């Protein structure tokens, strides 16, 4: 089985993330870039299948600037067999539609039985790219799964719905997205880090993929930074703090 794991390099959520106020785009200088944690969980799911069946091939794919190759190196050091890097200046600031069209084209070239991705990235939080990719490829999407059983005859999974969970399934090939309920990813070991350097990374440009420019696109028209919150009163409890808080809540009509 061939599994392609979609990986996105995102600003570290442990730091103060910044937008460029003129363009509305991410300020990549402001924070460290890391592999989005949800993608690591997706990769872990793929690697567990590989642990159980050595015939499983795991490919990590990303679209991003030159520096995004770091995310692929991390995936390779964790255990992916190879990687695909879609890199092209014309893709700077690509919206979800352009991103999905490009990923779909690259997935056609790469080939797969299963595509594994995160349910949403921590930066954009849109959660629409996997569905767009599925529509481009005319494939089923099993999205926002809390668990999955992936086998040659198809994927069975449990999906997190609004008021409970759903038992769902699809035949292969299929697109699958995982939630935080999937197991945490393994750490790269020393051998993994050494062998990662010898694993192949294929580079694809937008021209090679020949993705037609869509007629529709999203445009940011304004970006405003909110003033930071200021700290208010802070009491050390001496036995009376609860009463003072109750007074504060009443005075501000919060109870």
């Amino acid at each position, binding site marked *: 089985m061939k599994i392609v794991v979609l990986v996105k390099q995102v600003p570290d*959520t442990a730091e103060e*993330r910044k*937008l460029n106020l003129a363009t509305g785009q991410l300020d990549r200088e402001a924070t460290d870039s890391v592999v989005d944690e949800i993608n690591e969980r997706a990769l872990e799911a793929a690697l567990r299948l590989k642990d159980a069946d050595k015939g499983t091939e795991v490919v990590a794919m990303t679209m991003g600037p030159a520096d995004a190759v770091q995310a692929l190196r991390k995936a390779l050091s964790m255990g992916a067999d190879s990687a695909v890097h879609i890199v092209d200046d014309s893709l700077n600031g690509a919206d*979800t*539609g352009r991103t*999905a*069209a490009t990923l779909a084209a690259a997935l056609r070239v790469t080939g797969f039985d299963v595509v594994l991705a995160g349910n949403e990235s*921590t*930066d*954009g939080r*849109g*959660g*629409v790219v*996997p*569905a*767009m990719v*599925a*529509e481009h490829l*005319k494939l089923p*999407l099993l*999205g926002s799964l809390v668990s999955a059983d992936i086998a040659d005859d198809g994927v069975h999974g*449990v999906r997190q*719905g*609004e*008021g409970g*969970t*759903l*038992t*769902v*399934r*699809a035949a292969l090939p299929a697109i699958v997205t995982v939630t*935080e*309920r999937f197991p945490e990813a393994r750490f790269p070991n020393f051998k993994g880090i050494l062998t990662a350097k010898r694993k192949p990374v294929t580079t694809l440009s937008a021209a090679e993929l020949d993705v037609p420019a*869509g007629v*529709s*696109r*999203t*445009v*940011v*028209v304004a*970006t*405003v930074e*909110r003033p930071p919150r200021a*700290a*208010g*009163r*802070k*009491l*050390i*409890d001496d036995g009376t*703090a*609860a009463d003072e*808080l*109750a*007074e504060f*809540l*009443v005075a*501000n009509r*919060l*109870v």
Partner: protein
Amino acid sequence: MSNVLALIEVSHRGEMAASARGLLAAAATLGSPVAVVVSAAPLADDDVAWLGELGAVRVYAALTAAAGTVLVAPAVDALGAAIDAYSPVAVLTANSVDGREAAGRLAVRVGGSVLADVVQVRSDNGTVVARHSVFGGAYTVDSVVEGGLPILTIRQGAIEGQAPSATAAVDEAFLDTPSEGAAVIDGFNDDAVVSARPELRTAATVVSGGRGLGSPENFALVEQLADTLGAAVGASRAAVDAGYVAQTAQVGQTGVSVSPQLYVALGISGAIQHRAGMQTAKTIVAINKDEDAPIFEVADFGIVGDIFTVVPKLIEAVKARSN
């Protein structure tokens, strides 16, 4: 007036989703709201009347045997057919698991673009402008769609108010069963506990607990204060990961984003990922024994103390004042 489609989700038990109010309210600010509903059985008169009360001028009732057995595809087909029927200026879905998948597929199918996780909408000389709250509310970003149909996923609980009520006219349509590329639903497992507490995403007051609670049993303290304040219950990821409370209560970067009038954080250190889900609250109260906990940097009222001492006293003090 221009039509605006709103996808109204229906549970497998036939209940209309609470997100309908916000969707129809947002639709009404952009044009004439058309509720798009997919179901296996014809809609009850009560459901149509309810949608009208929430502002639907028309209801596009798409009937298909695939509703409840095929995942999301029937909703995409219904929206596609409704676009042909009403030539809308925008399509709105909830930013829910189903809603955003429907929006993503629809954008590819009809040549539109998705404006995701929208917290406010307006029409600027006929252009649909969507507002987003980015990086946990640190930025407010406005965006538009050029050259195609705007498809908006609306953050649940973000749109306030209600559209003027209408008497909804019903247009019934029959959809074919989706043939290719669809996933199948084999069953539903509803959450067992239907709480009498307010819904987390729309509650005016939220009381959240963190790792400081120490155990699932102790988490009852959070629930007691929540019930005293008429609040919803939330939690930090640490508390969820430790198994104190269900994942659906998670507030933060990768959970629910809330903007209540009052947010009370109990035993929550206030990691940046948690603050990303609650720092747009109007008033923040924090109680934590660690004087240096970062939650105090954003708290309007902070108490450095033991939650197991302070919270029971607070419950008594609030009860005494409200009597």
